[in-house]
């Protein structure tokens, strides 16, 4: 069994899984969990893509 995920796919999956786990760990009410998960996921992606672009000049 092999998975060949791209950088973006791996980041998306990782961010989603960690956000869900943190949401369920730290919040009790469903609405609070959803908000936390959405916010955490957004920040994961923003930082991931931001750091990726910040490194771009060094690779060229």
């Amino acid at each position: 069994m092999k998975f060949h995920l791209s950088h973006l796919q791996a980041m998306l999956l990782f961010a989603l899984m960690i956000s869900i786990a943190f949401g369920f760990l730290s919040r009790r009410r469903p609405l609070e969990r959803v908000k936390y998960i959405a916010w955490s996921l957004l920040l994961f992606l923003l930082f991931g893509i931001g750091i990726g672009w910040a490194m771009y000049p060094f690779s060229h």
Partner: protein
Amino acid sequence: MTDETQIVAASPPDTKGEVRAIAFGIAGWLVPGLGHALQKMWGRAITFFAVVGVLVFVGAGMRGNLFNSDGGDAFAALGYVADLGTGSLYLLARFIEVGGPDVSHAYGDYGTRFLAAAGVLNLLAALHAYEAARGRKA
């Protein structure tokens, strides 16, 4: 799911309660989510089982490095501890990864991170189950 609104007690648990809490913590480590399931926190139990399971399954499928006890340096030892955090799923990862790790590609390296993250996350969940059983977390 309804029972997740329990807890927040101030008094420390007795010895029996402490043993029970430790047992829940160990159960949660061995099988992701079991520590919460035994306390009828079904939402958290299913979520932790699914999240840790997906991370291990995909991480091993990406041929991430699954560390063993004879790593040789501090980083390998830390990686081993993190991987062991997945409990019984460590054996599942070994079973899935029959071809061994392949970190010569980027996805193999990602797989290593997935496996380590799954372990650390499961340890966190097990600690949460322990604390919840002691009445210190909701």
